Each structure stands twice: as structure tokens, then as C-alpha cells.
């Protein structure tokens, strides 16, 4: 009888320990940044003019984001093949956040950090681009202001889009691999990268480059007084570094 009591107690204690890895695993910090790269901070300047030869300098590039999430996926999420991200672990910043990609901290603009992230490789990323409720870009998910120039002409512009979308990306691709959060109270960072050349194209790339074929250039907006609506549907602006993302338009 006594022996069986010990057996029961010991088995229960062992079973409880099975759940400990999830509750007691050391936590680290995952920090999210948004990045419009040099095209946001320096603009489109020679030789990197728009595909139709315009110089662009940006005063503000507002984007509004929510549900910024990082995932540990195995097998790794493939944005070319997979519709949904299936993750063993996930950390999220709910938002919404309205960021200016030309702000003081640009090109890397802090979105936020999570300091209770379980260790592992965060090899997938998702976020939602949605309309801002308030602030300078209220009513729009993306808004660009600045000055355009071509052939001696200079004109201010305001371009905006109210389209909402969800980006689902695989691993960050760049000079270094990102997203590895060590178990010993470490930190890592991830990046939501906005490729503005997918909107305006690039004069220093071949005209038949797939990006140039789909990009608007600036000519369609040049004859508007100041404000014009951009149609972003079909353009792949969001990346993680150089890594591709699947876009779902809402």
C-alpha cells in the first residue's frame, strides 16, 4: 500500500515536469523593426531614378501595421508554397502602429519588442497593413509625401492607399541570417522591409525586369494636382530583408 502511494506520487511529479519546458524555458527578447531602406531616406536619385526617369525625395512615408508576429516553423514556412503559417511558437505585437519610414531613426524604425519570447529560430514573419484610425495618415494604410522632379520640373506629391493586406514571409534574407534567439537570455531582431521600387520601378534595372513591368513609375501621378491614390494590389512591397512574402489582399 505504502509502495503504491510512493509510486503514484512519483509518477505525478514526473508528469508535472513534462509541462515545465513551456513554462520555465528561459525567455529572450525579439525586437521588430520596419525598414524602407535607402530609397526611403535618400529617395530615388540618379542612377536609381524611377523607371520613367523621375527623381523622388520623400518627406514622410507613413505605414500602419498591426499583428506583427514572428514564428518558429518546422518545416520552414515557404511563402511561395504555403498559404498559412503553421508554427510551434509565436510571439506578437498587436498594434496598431503608424510609423514614418523617413523618421529620425530611419532607415531602421523600431516597432516594438517582446521580452518574453521563447528561444529558437524565428524563421517566419507576418503583419497586417491596415488603415490608420488617427494621426497624419488617418484613413490610409500607406501615405507618401514628398517632391518629384524631372526635366527641370519640380512638383510636390501626396500619394495614398487605403488598401489593407496581410503579409506572410519566410526567413529574413540579407547580409546575415536573423531570428536566432539563444536560450541564455539573449536577443534577436527581425525586420519588415518595404521595397519602394516595387511601386515606382528603377531606371537602373532593365525595362523587362519583372519588378519594372509591374511597377507604376511616377508618370501616372505626375499630372495630378497634388494628391493621388496609389493602387497597391498586385505589388509586393513588403519583404523581410530580401526575402519574399505572400500577400493576401482584404
Amino acid at each position, binding site marked *: 500500500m505504502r509502495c503504491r502511494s510512493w509510486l503514484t506520487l512519483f509518477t505525478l511529479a514526473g508528469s508535472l515536469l513534462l509541462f515545465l519546458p513551456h513554462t520555465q*524555458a528561459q525567455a529572450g527578447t525579439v525586437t521588430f523593426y520596419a525598414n524602407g531602406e535607402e530609397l526611403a531616406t535618400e529617395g530615388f536619385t540618379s542612377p536609381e531614378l524611377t523607371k520613367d526617369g523621375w527623381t523622388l525625395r520623400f518627406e514622410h512615408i507613413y505605414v500602419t501595421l498591426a499583428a506583427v508576429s514572428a514564428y518558429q516553423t*518546422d518545416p520552414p514556412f515557404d511563402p511561395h508554397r504555403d498559404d498559412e503559417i503553421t508554427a510551434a511558437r509565436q510571439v506578437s505585437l498587436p498594434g496598431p502602429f503608424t510609423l514614418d519610414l523617413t523618421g529620425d531613426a530611419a532607415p531602421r524604425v523600431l516597432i516594438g519588442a517582446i521580452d518574453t519570447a521563447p528561444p529558437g529560430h524565428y524563421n517566419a514573419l507576418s503583419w497586417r497593413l491596415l488603415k490608420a484610425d488617427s494621426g497624419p495618415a488617418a484613413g490610409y494604410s500607406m501615405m507618401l509625401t514628398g517632391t518629384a522632379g524631372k526635366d527641370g520640373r519640380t512638383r510636390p506629391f501626396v500619394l495614398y492607399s487605403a488598401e489593407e493586406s496581410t503579409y506572410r514571409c519566410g526567413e529574413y*534574407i*540579407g547580409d546575415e541570417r536573423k531570428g*536566432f534567439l539563444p536560450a541564455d537570455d539573449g536577443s534577436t531582431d527581425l525586420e519588415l522591409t518595404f521595397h519602394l*521600387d516595387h511601386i515606382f520601378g528603377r531606371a537602373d534595372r532593365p525595362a523587362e525586369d519583372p519588378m519594372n513591368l509591374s511597377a507604376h513609375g511616377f508618370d501616372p501621378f505626375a499630372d495630378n494636382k497634388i494628391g493621388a491614390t496609389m493602387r497597391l494590389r498586385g505589388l509586393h512591397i513588403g519583404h523581410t530583408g*530580401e526575402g519574399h512574402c505572400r500577400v493576401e489582399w482584404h
Partner: protein
Amino acid sequence: MRGPKVRTLFAGLLAGMALTPPLVQAHGAIISRTTQTVICVQATYDSGQPMAGAQMAVFSAADPTRARLTGTADNNGHYCVVSPPPADGAISIQARLAGHGAIIHIPADAERGFTQNSSPRTAAGYNTTQRVVMAASIVWGCIGTALYFTGRRPG
């Protein structure tokens, strides 16, 4: 009479072997074999256009943040790795060109059907104490079960 004949014959054989010129031994031909794994990838844009001349980098699972090999894809976006390090063969190959890139993960047992070689639960990591206690629980369970049935012996 037989003994001296055998000894003479044996001595003759030894002498013949000793006098055989070394040149004859060099005529032996040996083929040795080593088996190498060759993994080839093709990097393309999603339009299907090859990423000609893409920068390629090979990472091992053991040291995933440092490229073990780097190279350049050919005009068709092809890039091959011979005997990829490390010994377990699990590698990731990254391709980058003109601001776009992709990475492919190739498990160690890719040749047997691309099954995964890691599990999320193991990745979470039980510490040594937890592993010992779990093992002890199993052993004690067996002993306890045996003691239980021993106690029920009819008598």
C-alpha cells in the same frame, strides 16, 4: 631424401621472390572509391527567370549564422555543393541577387524523402534534471508494478 628437396625448393622460391625487380610491383593498379554527396539547386525569380550570377551561401545546421561556403550561380541560376559540410549533411543554401533572395533548407536525410530531422519539442530543450527525473519515473514505474503484482501472489 624428401627433406633436402623441399628445403631446396623453398629456398629457390624465396630467392626468386627476392630477385623479382621492383618494376613488376609498380604494375599493380588500385582503384579506391569515395562517395560524395552532390546537391544542386537552381535559383529563379518567381517569374521563372534564372537568377544568373546570384550570390550563393551555404550554412550548416550546426552553425547556421556563418556561411560555410560561398559562390556564384551560373547563368542558369544553377549552383552545386559537393560533400556539403558538416558530416550530418543538413544544410541551408541561400541565393541573393539584385535585392531579392531566397533560402532552401535541405535536411540530412533528404535523399530518403526530405523528412525532417528535428522536432519542436526537442528544440524546446529539457534540462538534464528533467531528463533524469523522467527516466527515474519510468524505471520506478516498472519496479512499482512488479512489487504490486508480487504482493498479490495467492497464499
